[in-house]
């Protein structure tokens, strides 16, 4: 721990906007991921509230059928691709380098490009609302409904092209973080000494890298069908809708583990700190995570039991799916083992982490009920499925991400979030969440299909739906409490200590918020829970506050415009694909200009010295 406080070197001055646009600092990029993803989360949440308001009573007329279809499609797409994934990316960005004791990610500029491609892609998807043509074919865009013949508007073009853009961002980030974690660890940090969150991040990147190309190809073919008149998914031309389903779910199931593994990682960091006890069964945690991911590639057809794949295929996918409960169970039990015998302090991050376990179990168990293929014939495409995936996505991913937010907030912003408001946030979430989604199990089993913009009276759905709607608004209230908490902390003093919770990992060894170069001296690691080990070695509970240092002599990569330029070029290229319908001239001027801009940007980028505009120390 370098504590020598030197004079600050004169900082290189740029306007704030330019600074953030051109930054390659993983921490700033992380914050931008978080901020934009939270905005998208609010948008997705507001869509959900409108959905719930429409369904509060039978024969609801708040929105039209068309509007409703756009809402649930965009709600699902937004929450998955624009909220949970980038919220996880926020933590990857900000914390993976810190947790492995690195100064930055392997490719800082590529990282900036991922961010901007993601943000532009998200804006592009949502811009569809301005044309009254938001995607309306469901978040898995089943063909042939998504083909030009049955979806003549621009709606599904926005979807297919938007997801391709987002896919590029994800794959680029996947390469970057995989490399970072494999190759940028501090000295002494072997793979089996990495914090579990880093492990889960690594596994998540593997899933991203191996599953996104598959949906990319599916989307390319869909776009070709829609734009160039090919017949990949047009049955009249011999196309087979089953191929779409297979390709989508070969991606889609690993995708749900992309959404949950980072959450597992966060919880595995939070529980030990607030129980003052190391993670139970570290290596079992690592291997179960890897095993879940591995199995995750072999179960995709459990989304297709109703297609009548045949008894052999059904049996195989049933069994493979059930098997995932075993490694997941290992995780759950090891978490309980972690708190067992500990000294549990129920701070907000801990509450959310424990809430996560409690809720995820429910979602997992309903998942196992789905995996029983014949039973799924009654469950699939009903609200029972909707209940399942909100328990794992909201009760799972969002709860854990919230735990992470409370846990790491002081490190990110140098400010504490308020504990009292945090507890309100937690209890309102917990209640609102269960009131919203628990009745969905029942209404689903009682026969309510999903994706219906309204339902008739007389089927017994009315009361359940009303209760769910009330719950959703309680949930919204809890989010408002969180937002209020954030605003309050913003106004308050930036006085968070470096190590407010008695943390186990390296990020707590440096000032809150960290300086640009993270570590004045690259740390050397000798054990798991490196920071705990250091404190133990020094025989202290807390170290004294680390001072700020000048960073003289540390060279960080300089800011660059080219990532933004490439991202904009990429966006233009794809936007250009939207507006034309001919194979003879496949590319519009917009596409060509975008492509040219991209190539230009790539070349400038390639020849720009890494520290061209770096601050002069």
């Amino acid at each position, binding site marked *: 721990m370098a504590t020598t406080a030197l004079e600050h070197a004169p900082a290189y001055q740029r306007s704030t906007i330019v600074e953030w646009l051109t930054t390659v600092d993983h921490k700033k990029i992380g914050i931008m991921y978080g901020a934009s993803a939270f905005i998208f989360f609010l948008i997705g949440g507001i869509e959900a509230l409108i959905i719930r308001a429409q369904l509060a009573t039978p*024969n609801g*007329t708040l929105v039209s059928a*068309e509007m409703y279809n756009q809402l649930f499609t965009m709600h699902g797409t937004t929450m998955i691709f624009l909220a949970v994934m980038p919220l996880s990316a926020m933590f990857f960005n900000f914390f993976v380098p810190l947790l492995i004791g690195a100064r930055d990610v392997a490719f800082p500029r590529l990282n900036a490009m991922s961010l901007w491609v993601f943000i532009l892609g998200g804006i592009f998807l949502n811009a569809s609302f301005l044309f009254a043509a938001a995607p309306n074919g*469901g978040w898995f865009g089943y063909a042939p409904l998504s083909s030009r013949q049955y979806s003549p508007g621009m709606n599904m073009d926005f979807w297919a092209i938007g997801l391709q853009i987002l896919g590029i961002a994800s794959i680029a980030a996947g390469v970057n973080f995989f490399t970072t974690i494999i190759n940028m660890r501090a000295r002494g940090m072997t793979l089996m000494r990495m914090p579990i969150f880093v492990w889960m991040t690594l596994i998540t990147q593997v899933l991203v890298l191996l599953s996104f190309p598959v949906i990319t190809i599916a989307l390319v073919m869909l776009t070709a069908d829609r734009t160039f008149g090919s017949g990949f998914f047009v049955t009249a031309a011999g196309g087979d809708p089953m191929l779409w389903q297979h390709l989508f779910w070969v991606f889609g199931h690993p995708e749900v583990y992309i959404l949950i593994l980072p959450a597992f990682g966060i919880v595995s960091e939070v529980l030990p700190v607030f129980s003052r006890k190391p993670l139970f069964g570290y290596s*079992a945690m690592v291997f179960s995570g890897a095993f879940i991911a591995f199995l995750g590639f072999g179960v995709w057809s459990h989304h297709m039991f*109703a297609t009548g794949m045949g008894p052999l295929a*059904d049996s195989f996918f049933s069994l493979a799916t059930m098997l995932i409960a075993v490694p997941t169970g290992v995780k759950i039990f090891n978490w309980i083992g972690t708190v067992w015998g500990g000294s549990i302090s*129920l701070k907000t991050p801990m509450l959310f982490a424990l809430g996560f*376990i409690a809720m995820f179990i429910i979602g997992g168990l309903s998942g196992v009920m789905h995996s029983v293929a014949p039973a799924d014939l*009654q469950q699939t495409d009903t609200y029972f499925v909707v209940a399942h995936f909100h328990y794992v996505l909201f009760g799972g991913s969002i709860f854990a991400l919230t735990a992470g937010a409370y846990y790491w907030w002081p490190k990110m912003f140098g400010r504490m979030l308020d504990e009292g408001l945090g507890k309100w946030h937690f209890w309102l979430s917990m209640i609102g969440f269960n009131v919203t989604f628990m009745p969905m199990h029942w209404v689903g089993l009682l026969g309510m299909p999903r994706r219906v913009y309204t339902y008739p009276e007389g089927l017994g759905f009315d009361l359940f739906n009303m209760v769910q709607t009330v719950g959703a608004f309680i949930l919204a209230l809890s989010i408002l409490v969180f937002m209020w908490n954030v605003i309050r902390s913003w106004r308050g003093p930036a006085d968070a200590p470096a190590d407010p919770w008695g943390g186990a990992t390296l990020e707590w060894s440096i000032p809150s918020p960290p300086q640009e170069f993270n570590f004045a001296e690259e740390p050397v690691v000798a054990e798991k829970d490196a920071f705990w080990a250091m404190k133990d070695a020094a025989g202290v509970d807390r170290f004294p506050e680390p001072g700020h240092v000048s960073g003289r002599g540390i060279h960080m990569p300089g800011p660059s415009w080219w990532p933004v330029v490439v991202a904009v070029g990429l966006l233009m290229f794809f936007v250009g694909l939207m507006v034309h319908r001919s194979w003879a001239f496949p590319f519009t001027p917009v596409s060509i200009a975008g492509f040219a801009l991209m190539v230009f940007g790539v070349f400038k980028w390639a020849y720009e010295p890494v520290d061209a505009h770096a601050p002069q120390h």
Partner: protein
Amino acid sequence: MRLVRAPWRRFLPVGLLSFVLLGLAGCTDGSKYPQSTLHPKGDFAAMVDEVFMTTVWLALIVFIVVEGGLLWAIWRFRAKPNDARPKQIHGSTVVEIIWTVIPAVVLAFVAVPTIKTIFATANVPAASPGGEAPLKVEVVGHQWWWEFRYPEYGITTANQMHVPVGRTVDLRMKSVDVLHAFWIPQVTGKRDVFPNRETRLWFTALETGEFPGACTEFCGLQHARMDLYVMSQTPEEFAAWVALRKRDPEMSGAASTGTGHVTVDTIVRDTMSGTAVAAARGPDALPTDAEQAAPVPGDPRIAEGKALFTKKACAGCHSLNSIDQPKRSVGPNLAGIGVRKMIAGGWLPNTDLNLKRWIMHPQDVKPGVAMKGYTLSDAEADAIVAYLRTKR
């Protein structure tokens, strides 16, 4: 801290309790939930229900044990002032093996009945429980209505499927446009319906009654309103219904023999545009029998309606004859519409008022359907309704 600990201890048990109570509520009174999967009235649904309940009970046990353990740990090991640092345990191979094996064993108890049921439900039984050959029904999904064809009798009907109780029904299904899924929760699970492959499903209704069902694969704008009914009848009633259908030609006359009929292949499907118009309205009132007026023989409106049915091009899409109909008709077969329970994809009660509204303003009721508005005056619509009421 006060705020925190108390609810923690109380909340999950309460949640659990309401889980169970709601579950019981769902189980006890089936009549309130006509679309329920929990009250099987068919053999397929019963088999599924059995394996499902097995998993429910096992899951409930797992739930109680694991959540209980979690809550107990939180309560038991909550931090106390001046706690010493807890013992630093890094794991235990024995315990970990135990809690890897136990779930695997539990899953074996789920897996065995699962596989059994998969194979038991996979193929259509060769014979009904009573020994009869299964009744073949061809199901055709349309955006957004169902066509049912009985090859054995050469008859066709729509949205309301009649089956004899106790006789296995062998469904062969296909779609003319996008994917749909056929589902009647009380008697059988769902199966997707594809435009390019025939899928199969079967069931035997074990009780008489009316079982509602729905399309459950998202199929576009009006997916929500693609419901159907299964009328499970005694064999005698069913035979009478078939006889009635076979009599249709005498009742309907030349206009509806099916010649010159438009099929989906011959029209341009530009009507499914995603940017549909106004919000659909719900029915004004629940139907009573009185609102579905019985036809009065000799009513002049009947003849007028018959003429209008041809003149207004209704006959182009709809047939009033259920015998030997061409496949893939654009509009639902209207033989029997006079007494059908529901209209408009199974969600508007078939009252005179609703029928009239539908005929005059189909796009208001169900925006986006292939049936456009056909500028009918009030009187003309009444006449058509009166005529359609003769189709029983």
